[in-house]
C-alpha cells in the first residue's frame, strides 16, 4: 500500500489518503468518524491500516459522537482526529463549538470536506469556512495532496501548542484529486492516556464563559502571528496586479497564468482562519488591482475589502463581481475573469461546448442507478405495488436516494439524515394523506431513532416507516454501523437489531426479506391496514457487498435469463423494475424489442423472476 511506503519515497496519493498519511505521521492515537463523501477515504484508508500502525480506529454512530470520542481522547492526552463531510459538521457542531472554548490537551484535528457542485451531496453548497469563524477555531486549507499531508501535521502542531481544536478543510477536488506526494516518517502512536480532573477547565458555565471566550481571542492572535506567514505562499510576479487565492483554486490559477503567459503576483492562503492580516496588508499595499479567487462565499474578499480601507483605499478589488458564488471552479470557469482583469484575449469555450452539445444530442443520459440486484429496488417496487402513485414518499440520505429517478420517483423530498421521519410527522399532523417514510439502516442509528421516538410520543397518526436495511453504510463504501455485527477495526460485535429498537420504541414491527416480493407485499398490506406507528424492516444485504464477498471467494452468482418463447414483451421488467442488467434490444429503431438479461451484469437476486407476469424469467441454463 502506497500510504505505508517508507519516508522519503514519492508516491501518488488521493488527497484523502494523504491526509490519512499525515495523521499517522503525526502519531494520531484515536480516530473516530461517521463516513461521508467526499471525506470517506480518510477513514477508509485508516481503517485498513489501523491494526498495522497500532491506532485505535472506530466508525461511530454519527459525526457528533465521533467528534466527542476524539475530544475525550484528546483531553486524556492522546492525539485524536475525526473526519466528516460538510453536513456532518452541522451534526457535530453542537459539541464542536463548546470544545473550541474549553480547548484540548493533546492535538485534536477535525477534517471537514466541502462539496461545491454537489458531486456526492444533495443538501446545499455550504461553505464550511464560516464554521471556523463561528466556532472561533483555526482552519487550514490544503491545495493538493502534498499539502494535505503537510497541513495535517501542522494542524496537530497548532492544536497541541495552543490547546485548541483545529479544522483541516478540503473540497471535493482536494480530497478526490491525486497528486505526487513525498512521504515523511510515520510516528509511533500513543494510544493510552489519562483524564486528569481539573474542575472548571472543561465547562463554559458562567462566569467561566466570558473568560474562555476571551482566551480564544488571545490564542487566535498568537496563531495568526506564528503561522500566518508560514502558511502563506507568495509567488512574486511583475506589475501591480495581484491574485489572492486558497485551496484548489490556487492549482487552477497557476495553470491559467502559465497558459496565458502572464506574470501577476500570487498570494495563496493556507490558513483561512485566522486570516494573516499583516501578510495581506503588505501584499495589497502597492497593488492597483487584486483578483480574489475563492470558491463559494466571498470570505477572503470581504476581509481584503476591510483591510484595504486602511492600507490602500484606492485598490480595485475583484472577486464575486467577475466570478460565480456557486458551483466548483475550474480553468474554464476562471479564464473569462482573467481575460477581463488582465485585458487578455482568452479562449472562447462556448463554441466547443456547442459542438459537443451537437454530438451528444439524442444520447441517453447515464444517471446514477441502483446496482443490479439492489435490495432497495425490490423494496421500492413492492411498496409502489401496495401504495401506488398517490402516497407521499418521504426520502432520506443513502443509496435509496436513487429512488428519486424513473421509474420509481419515490422520494418526494430529501433533506438530511433522518429528516424523512420528522417531516412526515409534520405532514401527518395536518393532513390525512398516506405517507410512507424511508430511512436506511445506518441512517436509523445516525439520526433516525429520535424521529421514531417522537412519532411514538406525539402522534397516533404516524406514517408507515420503512427501514431499508442492507446491513451496511453502502453509499460511502461499505462501512459498518451498530447493526452490522463488526467494528471499524473488523472485530466482531453483537449487532443491534433494528426491529428490537423499533419495538422498544413502541412501534408495531414487521420484518421482510427484501429479495422476496411475496413476503414484502404481504407485510406491507398487513401494516397498511393498521394505524399508529408501524415499522417495516426490509432486510436484504447490499448486493454490491455480496458481490465483493463472493468475488473474494471466487464464487459467481447464479444468473438469470429470459425465455424468449415465454416473454410476452410486456416490458414490466424494464419499464417498471429497471434492473440495469435487463435490456430492451432492437436491431432497427422501429423493430419489435427483444428483452434480454446481460449475464455479465446480472447479480442473481431473482427478483425479476418473481415480478415477471408471464413466468418468462428463470435461472440461466448451462449450455
Amino acid at each position: 500500500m502506497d500510504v505505508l511506503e517508507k519516508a522519503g519515497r514519492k508516491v501518488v496519493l488521493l488527497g484523502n489518503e494523504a491526509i490519512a498519511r499525515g495523521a499517522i505521521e503525526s502519531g494520531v492515537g484515536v480516530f473516530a468518524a461517521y463516513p461521508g463523501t467526499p471525506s470517506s477515504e480518510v477513514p477508509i484508508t485508516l481503517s485498513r491500516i489501523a491494526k498495522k500502525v497500532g491506532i485505535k480506529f472506530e466508525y461511530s454512530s454519527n459525526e457528533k459522537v465521533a467528534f466527542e470520542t476524539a475530544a475525550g481522547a484528546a483531553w486524556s492526552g492522546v492525539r485524536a482526529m475525526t473526519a466528516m463531510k460538510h453536513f456532518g459538521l452541522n451534526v457535530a457542531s453542537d459539541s464542536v463549538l463548546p470544545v473550541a472554548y474549553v480547548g484540548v490537551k493533546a492535538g485534536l484535528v477535525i477534517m471537514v470536506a466541502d462539496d461545491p457542485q454537489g458531486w456526492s451531496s444533495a443538501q446545499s453548497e455550504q461553505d464550511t469556512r464560516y464554521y471556523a469563524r463561528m466556532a472561533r477555531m483555526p482552519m487550514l486549507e490544503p491545495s493538493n495532496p502534498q499539502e494535505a499531508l503537510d497541513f495535517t501535521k501542522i494542524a496537530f502542531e497548532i492544536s497541541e501548542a495552543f490547546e485548541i481544536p483545529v479544522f483541516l478543510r478540503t473540497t471535493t477536488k482536494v480530497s478526490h484529486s491525486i497528486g505526487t506526494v513525498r512521504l515523511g516518517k510515520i510516528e509511533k502512536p500513543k494510544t493510552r492516556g489519562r483524564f486528569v480532573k481539573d474542575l472548571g477547565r472543561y465547562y463554559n458555565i458562567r462566569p467561566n464563559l466570558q473568560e474562555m471566550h476571551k482566551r480564544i481571542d488571545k490564542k487566535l492572535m498568537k496563531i495568526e502571528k506564528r503561522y500566518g506567514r508560514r502558511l502563506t505562499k507568495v509567488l512574486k510576479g511583475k506589475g501591480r496586479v495581484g491574485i489572492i487565492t486558497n485551496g484548489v483554486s490556487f492549482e487552477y490559477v497557476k495553470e491559467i497564468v502559465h497558459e496565458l503567459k502572464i506574470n501577476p503576483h500570487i498570494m495563496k492562503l493556507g490558513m483561512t482562519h485566522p486570516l494573516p492580516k499583516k501578510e495581506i496588508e503588505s501584499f495589497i499595499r502597492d497593488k492597483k488591482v487584486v483578483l480574489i479567487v475563492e470558491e463559494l462565499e466571498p470570505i477572503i474578499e470581504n476581509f481584503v475589502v476591510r483591510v484595504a480601507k486602511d492600507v490602500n483605499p484606492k485598490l480595485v478589488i475583484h472577486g464575486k463581481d467577475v466570478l460565480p458564488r456557486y458551483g466548483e471552479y475550474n480553468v474554464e470557469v476562471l479564464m473569462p475573469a482573467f481575460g477581463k482583469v488582465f485585458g487578455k484575449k482568452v479562449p472562447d469555450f462556448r463554441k466547443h461546448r456547442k459542438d459537443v452539445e451537437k454530438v451528444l444530442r439524442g444520447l441517453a443520459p447515464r444517471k446514477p442507478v441502483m446496482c443490479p440486484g439492489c435490495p432497495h429496488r425490490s423494496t421500492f417496487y413492492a411498496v409502489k405495488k401496495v401504495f401506488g402513485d398517490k402516497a407521499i414518499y418521504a426520502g432520506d440520505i443513502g443509496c435509496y436516494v436513487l429512488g428519486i429517478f424513473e421509474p420509481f420517483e419515490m422520494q418526494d423530498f430529501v433533506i438530511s439524515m433522518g429528516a424523512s421521519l420528522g417531516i412526515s410527522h409534520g405532514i401527518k399532523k395536518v393532513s390525512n394523506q398516506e405517507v410512507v417514510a424511508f430511512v436506511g439502516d445506518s441512517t436509523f442509528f445516525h439520526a433516525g431513532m429520535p424521529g421514531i421516538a417522537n412519532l411514538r410520543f406525539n402522534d397516533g397518526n404516524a406514517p408507515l416507516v420503512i427501514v431499508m436495511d442492507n446491513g451496511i453504510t453502502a453509499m460511502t463504501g461499505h462501512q459498518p454501523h451498530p447493526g452490522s455485527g463488526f467494528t471499524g477495526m473488523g472485530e466482531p460485535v453483537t449487532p443491534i437489531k433494528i426491529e428490537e429498537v423499533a419495538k422498544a420504541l413502541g412501534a408495531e414491527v414487521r420484518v421482510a426479506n427484501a429479495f422476496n416480493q411475496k413476503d414484502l407485499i404481504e407485510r406491507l398490506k398487513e401494516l397498511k391496514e393498521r394505524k399508529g406507528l408501524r415499522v417495516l424492516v426490509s432486510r436484504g444485504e447490499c448486493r454490491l457487498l455480496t458481490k465483493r464477498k463472493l468475488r473474494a471467494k471466487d464464487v459467481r452468482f447464479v444468473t438469470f435469463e429470459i425465455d424468449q418463447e415465454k416473454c410476452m414483451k410486456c416490458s414490466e421488467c424494464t419499464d417498471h423494475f429497471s434492473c440495469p442488467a435487463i435490456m430492451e434490444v432492437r436491431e432497427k429503431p422501429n423493430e419489435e424489442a427483444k428483452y434480454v438479461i446481460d449475464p455479465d451484469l446480472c447479480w442473481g437476486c431473482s427478483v425479476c423472476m418473481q415480478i415477471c407476469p408471464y413466468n418468462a424469467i428463470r435461472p440461466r441454463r448451462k449450455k
Partner: protein
Amino acid sequence: MRYNVLCIGVGGEGVLTAATMIARAANYDGYYVRGVQLHGLAQRGGSIPTFVRFGDKGELSSPGIMQGDANLVLAFEPLEAVRATYYARKEKTIFVINDFPHMPVYANLLNLPYPKIDEIKKRVKPFAKQLFVFDAHSIAKERFGEVVLGNTIVLGFASRFMPIKRKSWVKAIKASSPRMIKENLEAFRIGENM
C-alpha cells in the same frame, strides 16, 4: 511537457484501476502527477470521467483537464467516448474505444436507442486526431473468462501513445492488481501487440 489522459467508463472500479495504473507508472518514471478520481454517488452506474495528468511540475497543477486538452481518451464504453468529446480536439486527441456497450437504463425508459458503433465513430471523429475501436472485453472473456481484464488490454494497447517506460508499466500493474497479476500482465501484453 505535460500529458493528459482521460479514462471514462461506467460505474464500478474498472476505470479507477486503469487510472491508478497510469498514475503509478508515470510516478515510477519520475513525472509529477495530478488527476481526479471521483468517488461516491458517481460510482453507482453513472458515467465517471477520471483524469490522470503527468509531466513537468511547472506545467501542470490543476487536477482536471481543460476543455479540448486531452492527449488521450481511454473510453472503456463506447457511448462514454462521445461524452468525452468535451475534453478532446481534432489536432490533439487520440481516442481508444472499447466496443463493449453498456446500455444506460435510461435508453429504455426515455426511449433513446443506443447508437450503433458507426454512429458513435461519426460523432467522435470531429474531435479525434486518431480513433481506434476494438472489443477488448470479448477478447478478455474468451482468453481469461473475465471481462474486467479487457480494461488492461485497452491500457496495453494505449501504452504506445504514452511516454512511459515499459518497466514502469510492469511495476505499476503489479502494484495495482492484488488479484490476477499474471493475467493482468498477460492482458497488457495482448494489448501491446495489437
